[in-house]
């Protein structure tokens, strides 16, 4: 039994934050940001919007794309859930009118969507469920230090979702071989230190016991760049070999939108022409686990990604964690994400 992508949707909060705006408060320029990241603007939540709210918007779009079918399980992949407990997926399922279906969150940072695909594939293959709504939803902006030039320009908020149903090998949309990996020895490269049990057990309750910076994302940009290129390329090679595909078989590399130069670096390592590297990072920034489904939606809506195209999907993120898979793109309708 295979998991087949049968619906796709996404949503971005309306507040656009330009490089010009960021440059007005940081020691940088719009050109510096764009040449080093490929990003021109990103979206940020306002008015109390949360990860749950974005997940509901994207999930509704994906269900509509799938013909408003029923689903048996809702998985929300997020690095920044609304709170430590409970997970947001049950609320998302309730707000989508899905009744008492199974629902829970996973956190594998920017790799969360590919990890979510693997999780959904396993549930369907084992027969526990017949269909899954997988949502990558991120409101990372409240976790970004507005004074940090290394992270402030990079990250954005957004959500993307797919519906997966049971089907057969060879069907368009069937999730192919999956490669996953992690490296916890480099957990400190991208981290939000505050808010978890490690600090609570060490310092007790109370924000005063923790440095303000611990509540924000910290990232060692140079080391992350090297790891991201190497891990994404190696994982992609692993999955291509298992699928018996060569680089020439790939129509689109749908990679996590971390930084355009990381994506180009990974393509260079793979020997993949840059014209096959899909990207929308110029308008979204890095939306972590939401980036791949948002990119897929943009690619389908623009007509670039067509039914029958062979897709190599790859992600890398905090953990460290990474994952890849391949599929032949199915014929599914989408709506443009404004």
């Amino acid at each position, binding site marked *: 039994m295979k998991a087949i992508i049968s619906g796709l949707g996404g949503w971005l909060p309306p507040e656009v934050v330009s490089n010009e705006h960021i440059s007005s408060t940081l020691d940088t320029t719009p050109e510096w940001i764009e040449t080093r990241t490929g990003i021109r603007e990103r979206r940020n939540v306002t008015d109390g919007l949360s990860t749950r709210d974005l997940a509901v918007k994207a999930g509704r779009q994906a269900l509509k794309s799938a013909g408003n079918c029923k689903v048996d399980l809702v998985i929300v992949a997020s690095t920044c859930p609304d709170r430590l407990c409970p997970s947001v997926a049950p609320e998302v399922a309730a707000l989508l009118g899905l009744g008492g279906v199974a629902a829970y969150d996973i956190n594998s940072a920017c790799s969360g969507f590919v990890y979510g695909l693997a999780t959904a594939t396993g549930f369907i293959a084992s027969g526990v469920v017949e269909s899954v709504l997988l949502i990558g939803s991120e409101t990372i902006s409240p976790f970004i230090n507005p004074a940090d030039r290394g992270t402030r320009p990079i990250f954005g908020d957004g959500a993307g979702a797919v519906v997966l149903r049971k089907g057969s090998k060879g069907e368009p949309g069937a999730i192919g071989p999956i490669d996953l990996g992690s490296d916890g020895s480099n957990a400190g490269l991208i981290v939000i230190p505050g808010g978890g049990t490690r600090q609570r057990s060490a310092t007790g309750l109370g924000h005063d016991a923790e440095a303000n910076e611990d509540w924000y994302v910290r990232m060692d940009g140079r080391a992350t760049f*090297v790891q991201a290129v190497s891990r994404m390329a190696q994982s992609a090679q692993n999955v291509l070999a298992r699928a018996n595909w060569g680089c020439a078989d790939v129509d689109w590399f749908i990679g996590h939108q971390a930084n355009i130069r990381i994506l180009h670096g990974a393509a260079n390592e793979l020997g993949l022409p840059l014209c096959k590297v899909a990207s929308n990072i110029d308008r979204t920034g890095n939306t972590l686990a939401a980036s791949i489904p948002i990119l897929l939606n943009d690619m389908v809506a623009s007509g670039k990604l067509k039914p029958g195209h062979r897709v190599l999907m790859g992600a890398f993120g905090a953990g460290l964690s990474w994952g890849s898979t391949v599929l032949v793109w199915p014929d599914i309708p989408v709506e443009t994400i404004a």
Partner: protein
Amino acid sequence: MSVNLDSIVQVIATRFKIDANRIVPEASFDELGLDSLSQIELALSLKKDLGISISDDELAQISTVSDIFKMVNKVC
């Protein structure tokens, strides 16, 4: 093992799509239009194409094509 200058010039020319004639020993990264991220990208390409690993500390000392040549032949 030693690596000649032409091999390094070829890696730079291919990776950054620069005319090889512009990549002379005294050319700086700035003069070639390369930024700080390009150092990391070059290190990844040297590893992939020539099998040479350069550390982050060593990278920080590089500013010209000649520096790369000396560093590569020191580490390999």
